[in-house]
């Protein structure tokens, strides 16, 4: 099983690539077929499929079959990892700022 940290990295890796961000932005406008997604880009369709695969693996995009076509839609829930990532840092810093206070108090005791 994937660790959750691994899954978080997958999301950041997925959104790190400009073409994948463009795909996400397209999908933010609604469901698209693979062909519709490939159309705006000057890269081969297999290349677009590969990027879609990264997004699917990261859980950012869902796929369904519709007759002979595959349709893709955004699953925005996974983007909350960015928010959760920030929240975990905030908890860390609050703890550390308290620890800094304890450290400073210890330095000035006679």
């Amino acid at each position, binding site marked *: 099983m994937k660790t959750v*940290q691994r899954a978080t*990295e997958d999301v950041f890796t997925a*959104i790190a690539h400009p073409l994948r961000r*463009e795909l996400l932005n397209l999908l933010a406008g609604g469901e698209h077929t693979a062909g519709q997604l490939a159309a705006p880009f000057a890269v081969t369709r297999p290349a677009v499929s590969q990027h879609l695969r990264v997004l699917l693996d990261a859980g950012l995009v869902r796929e369904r079959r519709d007759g002979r076509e595959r349709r893709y839609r955004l699953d925005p829930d996974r*983007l909350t990892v960015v928010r959760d990532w920030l929240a975990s840092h905030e908890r860390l810093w609050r703890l550390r700022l308290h620890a*800094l206070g304890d450290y*400073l108090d210890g330095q000035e005791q006679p």
Partner: protein
Amino acid sequence: MTTDVRSNAPGDHDAIDLEAFYPHPVELVWRALTEPAALATWLMTNDFQAKVGHRFTFRTDPAPGFDGIVRCRVLDCEPPRRLAYTWRGMPELPETIVSWSLEPVPGGTRLRLVHSGFATDPALAPLRDLLGGGWRSKLLAITLPDLLGRLAAGSRSQGAP
């Protein structure tokens, strides 16, 4: 004494902005932020040097998916008032920025910490706009085991005398 920590930007999804008052002179707080031995007691073991451009790491216990190393580079150092460095937990994660500012106030020092860059990528802006308020509140929260909670726990055990 218990430190009162306030947030200047609650609900922001790009930056953490915290402020704390310490009843100690600014020079002492500066030393706690810049002397490796002092930093190790309240944050993490490190090879920090107060020199712009210096690359250093904070180290704690590794955990699954995390090698225990925070990679940093000094961006700004203006004793005893300003200090900033980059902060990257894993090579795959985005580089964020930790900025400290120290202000002498009656009876002590006001310390402000801004940790930014969590969602600054402008290419993500259209997507964020579309998600709108949902980004902050509507979406179902995913329960993530807390990488940095472990990080904090690790540094707590290392910080014990």
